[in-house]
């Protein structure tokens, strides 16, 4: 697993996503190596099974954008080849075409996904519940959003439908985006530890790429389920 720029993008408990992925592998006896990637470090995305990209404050986001711009082609190739990616908030926006600021300036993104973001005056903040389909089953996922950007999808599937909260842009009722094995979302909270279905989905996808054909061994998720149910009961 590659965790991109953890020393830079350490807002909002994003590292919880990394912990959840790694723990849930190890609890099943699957070896996992978490590599923390720093700015400028030489890496090949071909070596990764799962790549996590979080968000940060404006200054840190600019540093990350500059660094990833230099790796753009490599990342695009990996995504086309099915690299499993989770991008949250700022990382999500960065994969798109551009971010338009309030005064109309367009900051180019990596252009890997067909989406764009424009800044809004009000930040969209609060608890969110999303309904999404994973492996043909409908699941409810909860998290917390905090973003000024409004993201609009082109020829892309959203991650899910907003049941409570604002989602991508507060207008169209959708949250996140999906393309190949790339999953984007505005939900932190963090997303993976309590929403185990998502965490296990990433593990399964990553293993499948390595030729693993077995089902994942189920774990006792009673704490996680209770945490999700508490929030669903409250916000729906």
């Amino acid at each position, binding site marked *: 697993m590659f965790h991109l720029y953890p*020393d*830079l993008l*350490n*807002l*909002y*408990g*994003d*590292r*919880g996503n990394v*912990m*959840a992925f790694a*723990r849930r592998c190890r609890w099943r006896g699957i070896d996992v190596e978490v590599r923390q990637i720093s700015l400028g470090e030489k890496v090949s995305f071909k070596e990764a099974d799962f790549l996590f990209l979080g968000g940060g*404050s*404006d*200054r840190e986001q600019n540093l990350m954008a500059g660094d990833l711009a230099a790796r753009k082609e490599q990342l695009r190739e990996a995504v086309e080849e099915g690299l499993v990616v989770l991008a949250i908030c700022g990382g999500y926006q960065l994969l798109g075409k551009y971010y338009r600021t309030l005064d109309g300036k367009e900051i180019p993104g990596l252009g890997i996904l067909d989406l764009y973001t424009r800044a809004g005056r009000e*930040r969209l*903040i*609060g*608890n969110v519940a999303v309904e999404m389909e994973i492996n043909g089953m409908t699941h409810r996922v909860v998290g*917390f959003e*905090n973003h000024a950007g409004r993201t609009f999808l082109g020829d892309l599937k959203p991650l899910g439908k907003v049941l409570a909260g604002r989602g991508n842009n507060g207008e169209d009722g959708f949250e996140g985006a999906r393309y190949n094995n790339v999953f984007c979302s505005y939900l*932190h*909270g*963090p997303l993976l*530890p*309590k929403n185990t279905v998502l965490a296990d989905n990433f593990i399964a996808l990553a293993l499948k790429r390595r030729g693993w054909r077995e089902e994942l061994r189920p774990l*006792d998720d009673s*704490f*996680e389920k*209770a*945490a999700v149910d*508490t929030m669903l009961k409250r916000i729906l």
Partner: protein
Amino acid sequence: MIVRFILALWAARLAMFVARVTGRGKGSSLPGKIALKIYPRILKQLGRQIKKGIIVVTGTNGKTTTNNMIAGIVGDNKGSGVIINREGANLITGVTAAFIRAAGPFGGLHADYACLEVDEASFPGVVREITPDIVVVTNFFRDQLDRYGELDKTIALVKDALKKLDSVRLVLNADDPLVAQLGRVTGKPSVFFGLARHPGVSGTGSAAREAKFCPFCGAELAYSYYQYSQLGNYKCPGCEFARPQTDVEGVDPGVDGMLVSCRVRFRQGNMYPLQIPVTGLYNLYNGLAACSVGLLLDIDMDGIRSSLAGYLPATGRMEKFLYRGKPVLLNLVKNPTGFNEGLSTLLSVPAERVNVLIAINDNDADGRDISWLWDVDFEVLSGAGEKFGTFVCSGRRAWEMAVRLKYAGVREETVTVLEDFDQAVRTALEGTGDMSYFLATYTALWPVERILSGYAQRERTLPESVPSISGSVKSVR
């Protein structure tokens, strides 16, 4: 205007009275809100009457403790009336209420000093109304992000507000680059406090660390050591920004049970022993900040030391209780850095076995986003083996806390979730430990404290029970 002024005053007083008789709305912002609504300039009018000095404490952690310490020092040594907003009522409404409470029926004030803790985001609004003579900035950590946006913005707010103040003196934490930069960017006369290097410093920073980059040139700051989080001895490789020379420095800090101590070096000269009946190294920073303010007000070091030696913690700032002869500690937690400090205290308490209660709410005052729990290093608990009896998780986000502990490597069978505070407090107290340690977020703190004081006795640290100054000289060498 005078009519509206008095009307505002009386309306707020009435709201305070109603809150007191009905016992509801403790720490409510309503009286201040009412007064500001009726007469928006009421705070300006009241603040102007302070005769000698207004001291404002802002920053992320330690505001209440530092402000209470300062008020103690000023009250003990200057003798005259001090207005203070106690117990975290630190928005403009709380500050206004503190003045109203102290005012006479026609709005007259007889106070020489005001000691005010002010929330970072409220700071610009408050100092537009009242003009502080001294501003203390304790530290900047990420806190309740969903309310403020991001930390950079909070710092910019404070910075811009400070620049507009004419004759202010600053008391700044030298060890926190985010705070220390304020001396240079505002150009205001500044006194710096900090801790000297000691054997407990670390070579690496924690995960929750802020401020990796120079605020002036953006280069990555180089640290020779860390005290905790981003506090430490830093230097920018790209420009001349570095930890400033301290005016008030704590040397040889020690944490001994329920007492912290150090020697205070003033302007690289004389050393004075200092002892404060509180726990945790971070409280030494609060003590050094208070010392600095005392020195700026020309109070002698003996007076400052004896005030601090008699310091009583406010609600939930490591408050002590006794339950069937066993000690119970209650501590407020509100952000990763404070929580990490709380955990390191928890690991060092002198007990065989500790019952732990963690109460997490997500109301506005707690921060609605609880993802900060994932920036706290709970992993330190998993290595402590038999030290902990049970972990009781409570509050509106009790389950979230349980999940966090699980992923930190704490065994699930040692975790009990009881969302109800009363059940949670009773279960924790009845645990197998010879001591209990309670951690609660802001809005969970009040109910937990109320319930706890029903079962356990509050332990008062009376001034005479605090070791005398001569005794403290011995213990700090």
